[in-house]
């Protein structure tokens, strides 16, 4: 007989093992879905997870896709660790892209080494400004940051629509909804000839190192952790809660804004209506799959990035509907949350009594 028993303490080993278990279960369930749909499961999984990164170009695309996810998820982990539910990273990304894109357009057809740093900085500031809205409303007016940050996503997309359709649209572009192309000085440099991976990856790596340092080596990191476990304890300890809320939102917004900069000054090179395929939302999955740990987030962003690439390859070569990629992302999160049950409970095998 099997009995379910509550653990005295959440198991630390299982804490880091469950993401791997979740990925494994996703593969099994995914294979099963392919089988039911009438595809060969192993061949389908091969086209999903191996073929897309089998060459240099594919690997570069994987890193290109993982870069914004990693950057945003790192920023979100500051919020989530400290019990602040910022789910509006997509809006902060969009607003960061708007501000940095606007600055890049100011330097249209100008060259100079100073342009790119200004453009990048503008994106970070844009993201911070946008993240400060839910933060300030939460600290001073006690609003729910989930609602405010989410609603602001749609506002940011409407602002972007307005700008690319109206005042910022390309004067030579027959009124189509897009801006001019940025000058080369406003573009992130490519790392290798013929590949799309760009210098934005260094921003993501820097964010990983900095977040690790803050989380585990600073007083702020400790405060965040305590607030995450228990807000009351944090209050008793006399931490300045309001300051911290604003700070983590600003960090999160800056990261999302930088991800937006990476997209528009990297592979896209202009502003148009669709700068991000919902990276800000997918990064929430990445943050949790990576257990809000900087190193975990690196791996998680690679895993989730490959579901995008795999879905394309599987459709091109096997005619598997591309939306299975989203099914995979959903399954990973679902299995992760489900296996978190094991954190707090364990199975006990008891010999049956006669």
């Amino acid at each position: 007989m099997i009995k379910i028993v509550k653990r005295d303490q959440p198991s630390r080993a299982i804490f880091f093992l469950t993401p791997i278990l979740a990925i494994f279960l996703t593969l099994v369930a995914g294979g099963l879905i392919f089988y039911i749909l009438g595809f060969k499961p192993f061949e389908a999984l091969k086209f999903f997870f191996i073929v897309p990164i089998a060459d240099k170009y594919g690997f570069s695309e994987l890193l290109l896709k993982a870069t914004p996810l990693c950057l945003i998820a790192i920023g979100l982990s500051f919020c989530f660790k400290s019990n602040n539910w910022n789910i509006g990273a997509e809006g902060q990304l969009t607003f960061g892209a708007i501000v940095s894109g606007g600055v890049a357009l100011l330097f249209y057809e100008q060259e100079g080494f100073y342009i790119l740093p200004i453009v990048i900085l503008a994106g970070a500031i844009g993201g911070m400004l946008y993240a400060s809205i839910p933060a300030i409303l939460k600290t001073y007016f006690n609003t729910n940051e989930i609602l405010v940050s989410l609603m602001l996503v749609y506002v940011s997309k409407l602002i972007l629509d307005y700008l690319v359709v109206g005042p910022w649209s390309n004067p030579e572009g027959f009124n189509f909804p897009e801006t001019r192309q940025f000058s080369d000085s406003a573009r992130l440099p490519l790392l290798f000839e013929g590949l799309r991976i760009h210098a934005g990856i260094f921003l993501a790596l820097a964010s990983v190192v900095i977040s690790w340092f803050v989380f585990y080596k600073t007083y702020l990191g400790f405060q965040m952790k305590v607030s995450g476990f228990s807000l009351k304890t944090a209050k008793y300890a006399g931490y300045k809660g309001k300051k911290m809320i604003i700070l983590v939102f600003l960090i999160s917004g800056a990261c999302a804004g930088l991800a937006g900069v990476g997209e528009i000054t990297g592979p896209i090179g202009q502003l148009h209506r669709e700068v991000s395929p919902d990276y800000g939302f997918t990064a929430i999955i990445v943050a949790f799959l990576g257990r809000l740990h900087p190193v975990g987030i690196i791996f998680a962003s690679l895993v989730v990035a490959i579901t995008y690439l795999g879905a394309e390859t599987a459709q091109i070569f096997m005619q598997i509907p591309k939306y299975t990629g989203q099914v995979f992302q959903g399954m990973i999160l679902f299995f992760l949350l489900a296996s978190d049950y094991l954190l707090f409970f364990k199975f006990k095998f008891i010999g049956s009594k006669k």
Partner: protein
Amino acid sequence: MHKFFIRSFVSSLVLLFTFTVAAIAKDVKAAFVYIGPTGDHGWTYQHDVGRKAVEAAGFKTTYVEGVPESADAERVLRQLANSGHDVIFTTSFGYMNPTNKVAKEFPNVKFEHATGYKREHPNVSTYAARFYEGRTILGTIAGTMTKSNVIGYVASFPIPEVIRGINSFTLAAQKVNPNIKTKIVWAFTWYDPGKEAEAAKALIDQGADVIAQHTDSTAIVQIAEKAGVYAFGQASDMDKFAPKAVLTSVENNWGPYYVDRVKAVANGTWNQKDTWHGIGDGMVVISDLDSQMPADLRSKVKKLQADLASGKVHSFTGPIYDQKGNLMVAEGKTADDGMLAGMMTYVKGVEGDIPK
């Protein structure tokens, strides 16, 4: 004599070889990149109907659906170009820059971009449909069928394609009924059943008894069906979704063009082109006319359709005035393609301002 035999043998070999090459060249593969799911109606569905026509003509095809216009488009295009496709159709405006970028890297692959204007390399063609001709038909029907003289129009984004449609529709409606007003609601989406339904309700509340749409979902015709007003199908024949409300639909018919272009690749006769086809070339198709329409209207519409096809009637024939009363097209003149391509002002009779 001996020499002659060798020569003829060699030349027949060469001939055989050329035939084999031609046969291999016939074996072209076409790829299609879609912005949405293939579904059962709407923009992407119609492109997929076109793709199936290419298959029926004996060619192999591949498609990728739901490709965002973000940085992802470029990767999908490169992968298709890299995996043995000879011609790639990119079926949304936002693929314009990625299409031209990838075309540069693959000079032997042909690229066909829908609704764009950039042809930066000799292997890029563009194509679009003169949907405004279909809207001339819809305007004629709406102007005749309305009793309240208020016609609703759910628009997507303030770009020339949409403004042109509103104008063409309004001009045709005014021609049969000078008292009509066209009320516009901007939904700022191509596909969002919720928003589109809200827009349609708002227009019906304002007294509109005929609703036209430049968005993709069936929500509007279904709302019209419930409210007992008339509507028109967009992109696909939407009659089955709202049999009472839908008077007719303007269908996007890409099949003939796609088959034509893929055959041209196979025959080696493909060349760079900018195609803008209308009713005459069969790219814009008017669905069956509903029997609720009076017989004389139906025959009038049929005649108008034939005249638009032959070029006898042009949707934008002067005199055309803008909202402020300034002359846009002089009497007896027609708007040229340049003016149509960049059209960003409403004609007289349209209510409200273009969102800026």
